[in-house]
């Protein structure tokens, strides 16, 4: 990696450490862990299963939220504090700034995934936990790349955060929406249905169906096939590359 990209990545990581991200992750982890123990105590049967499912599903959403906010706030701070202006005044290609920030954020995403997965070591088997952690890390990679793209494109926190949230919710429900649009109970031949179906199918071509990522069932039912995990990882890498290219495309076209 180019040393300048590595330097930006290192400072991105340092910034996360100095803005008390580890404390936030630890507090979230402990809160969800405590809540999962409570759920375990009120469950009449399958207490451990209830606990694992509750913690895994809750921490997945919390990790996505934290990772997205770290990216959005960090880049917004660069914009507002004119730190970006200083960086751009240096002999540094714009792509290096994007790639450096992205590398740092990907490192943060991986660390968050590993940290929140650690408590599951007590209840899940090692292969299942490894699969779940890899999947969460690559899911968070997509989220941070998307957040970076949004904040560079929209320049402001609120629209960027709204877009990330909407994209994530849509990506988690895309398969169900596709199924429902393919086989409606009525009105299959109407023009409106044909249009909706076309739009949904088009969305499915350019969006990852995140319901296939980081499934709690891998922890509490049966571990996934490794091929499925590799496919998820490959799709994530491709999508991160796409988002990085789109971010650089937008960033190069901006006038500051």
């Amino acid at each position: 990696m180019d040393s300048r990209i590595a330097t930006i990545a290192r400072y991105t990581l340092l910034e996360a450490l100095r803005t008390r991200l580890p404390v936030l992750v630890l507090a979230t982890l402990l809160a969800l862990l405590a809540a999962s123990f409570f759920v375990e105590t009120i469950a009449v049967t399958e207490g451990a299963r209830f606990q694992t499912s509750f913690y895994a599903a809750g921490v997945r959403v919390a990790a996505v939220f934290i990772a997205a906010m770290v990216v959005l706030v960090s880049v917004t701070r660069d914009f507002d504090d004119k730190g970006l202006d200083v960086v751009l005044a240096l002999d540094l290609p714009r792509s290096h700034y994007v790639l450096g920030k992205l590398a740092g954020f990907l490192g943060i995403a991986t660390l968050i995934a590993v940290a929140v997965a650690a408590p599951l070591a007590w209840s899940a088997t090692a292969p299942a936990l490894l699969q779940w952690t890899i999947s969460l890390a690559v899911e968070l990679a997509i989220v941070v790349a998307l957040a970076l793209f949004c904040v560079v494109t929209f320049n402001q926190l609120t629209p960027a955060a709204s877009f990330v949230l909407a994209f994530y919710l849509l990506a988690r429900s895309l398969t169900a929406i596709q199924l429902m649009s393919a086989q409606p109970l009525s009105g299959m031949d109407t023009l409106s249905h044909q249009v909706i179906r076309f739009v949904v199918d088009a969305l499915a071509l350019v969006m990852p169906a995140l319901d296939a990522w980081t499934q709690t069932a891998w922890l509490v039912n049966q571990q996934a096939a490794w091929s499925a995990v590799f496919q998820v990882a490959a799709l994530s890498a491709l999508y991160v590359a796409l988002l990085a290219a789109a971010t650089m495309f937008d960033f190069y076209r901006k006038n500051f």
Partner: protein
Amino acid sequence: MKISLERPVAAVPRWVLALLAAALSLQVTWQALQPRPTARAEALGAPPEPAVLRTAALGEPIGLAQLLTLYLQAFDNQPGISIPFLELDYPRVAAWLGTILAIDPVGQYPLLMASQIYAQVPDPAKQREMCEFVRREFEHEPDRRWRWLAHCAVMIKHRLGDTRVALAYADAITERARNASNWARQMRIFMLEDLGELEAATVLLGGLLESGEVTEPKEIYFLTERLGQLKSAGKSSPATGSRQAKP
């Protein structure tokens, strides 16, 4: 001179454009090659214990009961697939309905679903199963739930032709649901008549008129006329077939 907010596309390095085009093409190609998602019917799981649900409701048991009702109602229409009610696991369905009633006893929706939706399938055993569920739940709140049992009584009598069971339901309404409408409380008299038990029907109808529970003049006139017909039928002939048997 006005400065444009965006630079031209030519300002973007070619390798970035190439990466964007390649990644987008690969993404679209990969997704297009994936098989379309297929719908898969999921079995209805057992409901959690009412005590657990009450705790999980966080102080909103009515809201939770309504959510569970909608979940159950939508179970026949899972994404991309429609499951006929007939194929649902009825003991499970009854367990869910019972659980929902346990956390929101005032709600009528589960009983409506049992008597008007799940009991309408063309399977006598399942119809009886749902009606028995309504009968069991009726016992907990007769004055609030009699109308659903009355519906089941009529359905069992006319659709399944089982007047004995229908009479048992009608008896339960008369005996347990003091605030039920008169038509429902009088239902057993006409069922007894249908069964040919004219003497019992006469006694019950006479007792009802004497009790003063019926106050509407036209209803009193109708029932008195009916009592007269029963008495004359009882004198002229022994118990004969039912009204239902007539064309």
